[in-house]
């Protein structure tokens, strides 16, 4: 067996005093072999990124590794001076980041930024540097490398930028590649391409890859070995096959159990249920104004969108970014005025109503937004924000407060929370509050606009469960907007798939997933990572073993 490229032993990184725990990472040990992809999985705050950054020597100043060693190239990285560590970076170890949109300097061409690698670490002549840069661009499968070479980052798409970052990382053929959630910010199809690229590169280069992610599908797609982290510690590690299918630690099991199934929970038929919302011929066009140096352009965000939803139904609206689903939502709740078309709610077409005429219908359609941090006013108490709706519609404040208490219980929060401010709640709690707020006015239709996308899997599961419960209990109609096919599959009755402002596919979940008719849907489905992995039924596994330390390696 060859020697590991990277070997971390007993690493502990301290958090500054006053945090909720003393260490960001504690007693961490792991190894990465050449040509091996090791996935570090964990929810936010588990310390997985910190491990990556410690290895790269890019920790913020507030965080200090206090013990342990990181052996790389026969040297302990923790003992290196910053300058020595800097020499290793880029040449021997390289990193790919989560946000391709901001990972490149907007002021320089991407060619220049890749060439910098050669400038810094080699003494190649300019022509050679350029030639190698072009070759790299070709290797990461960017079309027309010459043009890309002299492009600025903002002229490229997110996927293209991520390829640039990868090209940059590969420039000097490093022994270790660290990828920190490299596909999280990308569309499904782009993600598939990037994952494919990484797998291919592993074959061509001999690098070992540390791949940090929160997504078990991605793990299933790419990992050779898996390390599961919780609260700064490793709870389980082993081969991908082992961890994914036969997780031993309760926490791993919890995480895997929370992964939405691709199959829908069976529900009563909706046949005969009344139509709640009908949208017909909805059109919306944006004119993006030009600036001094850029011409304006027109975006057709919704083209002849039409669908109907019954009472009690959950309709999933699926699409990648830019597909027009957000615009559709805005038109439905009339934050935007549609250019044409009708929106029928209980027999009234509210699409063209004036603001005043609209007022009584506002409460029919309510919404839960994506960002749990932006959707509550930080300067008002939860209670104040909850009673806002009923009071606006002429309700009595005390009565509304009583209902708010009721709803807090329904969303499983302490009614005392009404006196607190949003910053005192976690993301999942906030989403529950948002749901409660929406329910305050007893809406007929609830729109969940990517309502669980920003949450960790375990929290996500809870919120989804809550949504389903409430739907059934209150007979709500739900429009579930998401980019996540797994989630859509699990909670929706019917689906529509949008692409560039148009509905390209519609049908029941089984129809859409089973026999997609439109090429785009097919492509989208094919792009899902980890399709070969069937999420195991955790309840059928043998009893969990306790906390494991180094056992996995032995």
């Amino acid at each position: 067996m060859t020697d590991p490229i990277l070997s971390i032993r007993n690493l502990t990184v301290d958090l500054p005093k006053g945090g909720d725990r003393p260490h960001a990472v504690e007693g961490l040990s792991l190894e990465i072999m050449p040509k091996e992809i090791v996935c570090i999985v964990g929810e936010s705050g588990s310390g997985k990124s910190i491990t990556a950054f410690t290895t790269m020597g890019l920790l913020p100043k507030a965080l200090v590794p206090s013990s342990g060693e990181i052996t790389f190239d026969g040297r302990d990285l923790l003992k290196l001076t910053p300058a020595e560590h800097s020499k290793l970076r880029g040449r021997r170890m390289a990193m790919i980041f989560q946000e391709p949109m901001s990972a490149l300097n907007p002021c320089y061409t991407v060619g220049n930024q890749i060439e910098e690698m050669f400038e810094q670490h080699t003494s190649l002549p300019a022509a050679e540097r350029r030639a190698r840069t072009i070759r790299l661009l070709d290797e990461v499968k960017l079309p027309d490398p010459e043009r890309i070479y002299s492009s600025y980052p903002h002229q490229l798409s997110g996927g293209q930028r991520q390829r640039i970052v990868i090209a940059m990382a590969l420039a000097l053929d490093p022994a270790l590649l660290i990828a920190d959630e490299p596909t999280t910010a990308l569309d499904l199809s782009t993600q598939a391409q990037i994952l494919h690229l990484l797998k291919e590169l592993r074959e061509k280069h001999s690098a070992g890859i540390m791949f940090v992610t929160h997504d078990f599908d991605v793990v299933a797609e790419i990992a050779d070995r898996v390390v599961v982290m919780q609260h700064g510690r490793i709870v389980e590690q082993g081969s991908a096959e082992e961890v994914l299918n036969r997780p031993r630690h309760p926490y791993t099991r919890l995480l895997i159990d929370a992964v939405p199934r691709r199959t829908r929970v069976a529900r009563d038929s909706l046949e005969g249920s009344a139509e709640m919302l009908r949208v017909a011929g909805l059109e919306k066009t944006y004119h993006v104004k030009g600036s001094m140096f850029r011409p304006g352009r027109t975006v057709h965000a919704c083209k002849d969108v039409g669908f109907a939803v019954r009472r009690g139904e959950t309709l999933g609206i699926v699409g990648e970014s830019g597909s027009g689903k957000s615009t559709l939502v805005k038109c439905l709740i009339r934050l935007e005025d549609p250019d044409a078309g009708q929106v029928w709610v209980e027999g009234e077409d509210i699409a063209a109503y004036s603001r005043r005429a609209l007022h009584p219908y506002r409460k029919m359609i309510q919404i839960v937004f994506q960002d749990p941090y932006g959707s509550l006013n930080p300067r008002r108490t939860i209670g104040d924000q909850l009673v806002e709706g009923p009071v606006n519609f002429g309700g009595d404040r005390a009565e509304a407060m009583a209902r708010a208490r009721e709803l807090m219980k329904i969303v499983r929060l302490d009614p005392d929370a009404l006196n607190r401010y949003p910053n005192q709640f976690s993301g999942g709690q906030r989403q529950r509050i948002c749901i409660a707020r929406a329910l305050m006015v007893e809406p007929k239709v609830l729109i969940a606009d990517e309502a669980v996308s920003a949450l960790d899997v375990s929290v996500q599961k809870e919120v989804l469960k809550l949504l389903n419960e409430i739907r059934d209990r209150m007979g709500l109609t739900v429009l579930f907007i998401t980019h996540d096919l797994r989630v859509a599959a699990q909670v929706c009755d019917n689906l529509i798939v949008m692409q560039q402002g148009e509905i390209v596919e519609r049908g029941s979940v089984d129809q859409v997933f089973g026999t997609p008719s439109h090429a785009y849907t097919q492509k989208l489905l094919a792009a899902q990572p980890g399709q070969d992995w069937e999420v195991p039924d955790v309840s059928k596994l043998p009893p969990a073993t306790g906390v494991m330390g180094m056992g996995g390696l032995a």
Partner: protein
Amino acid sequence: MLLYILKRLGLAVLVALTVSALSFSLLFMAGDPAISIAGENAAAEDIAAITERYGFDRPVLVQYADWLVSAARGDLGRSWYFDLPTTEIIGDRLGVTMTLGLLAICFALLLAIPMGVAAAVKPNSLIDRAALFISVVGQAIPSFWFGLILIVVFSIKLGLVPASGSSSWKHFILPTVVLGYYATPAIMRLTRAGMLEVLSADYIRTARAKGLAPRKVLFKHALRNAIIPVISLAAVQMGFMLGGSIVVESIFALHGAGYLAWESISRNDLPVMQALILVFSMFYILFTFLADVLNAWMDPRLRVG
């Protein structure tokens, strides 16, 4: 592109027109200009004659239209006091003000940018505190008072530089310091804040992950981005400074446009005041326009669509 420049220019003209209309109505609303022209020792009959000669008995609107028409031809009227074309008088004085403005902005940039950068690189360090001190003091110190103190110390006590006038480069030292210091805090703060923001940007992390030397990360990647808003602020500040050099010019007896403005105010020389307000606002407009162009030139996101 050309269309946008034209649009921008159209807007600039509109702004200038509004400013001139506002100032015209403001200035001519108060006081009988004839008396101003006649001067302190003039007798009654002189004043009557002047009122007739200049047509001050006509409605203000007519007078403004008149002014506008000749302004369009580049004639901003004659100074009542000097009885010379205002354009000639202002042109004569503008050199000093421009020199002062340029020197001051250079002084401000040379002081503010290095300190702002150093402060951002090492927050809460000694240099950060020094920078903070300089900027806090700069904001709080009244420039007229600061100017007087500098005269007392450097000119009288130490005899290093002349106290007033504009005949040699030495004369510009103190005014430059005073005026430049006035613009320093804003620039320094923006540099510091911009650098802090940029330094925590993802692409700086990328640059560091590439193993680039710290200096290269700092100057090539960080400063280049942080400097963009600073440049446009500096341009705007320059516009402000030209208009705000009145105090400094009057303290140091620099015969620039600012001093002319002050004198014209005390002489009630409305055509000169009116023209100066226009000229200063034109400068502001010009500088903001230049700032936009410069911004676009420095920031490819704006330049390349």
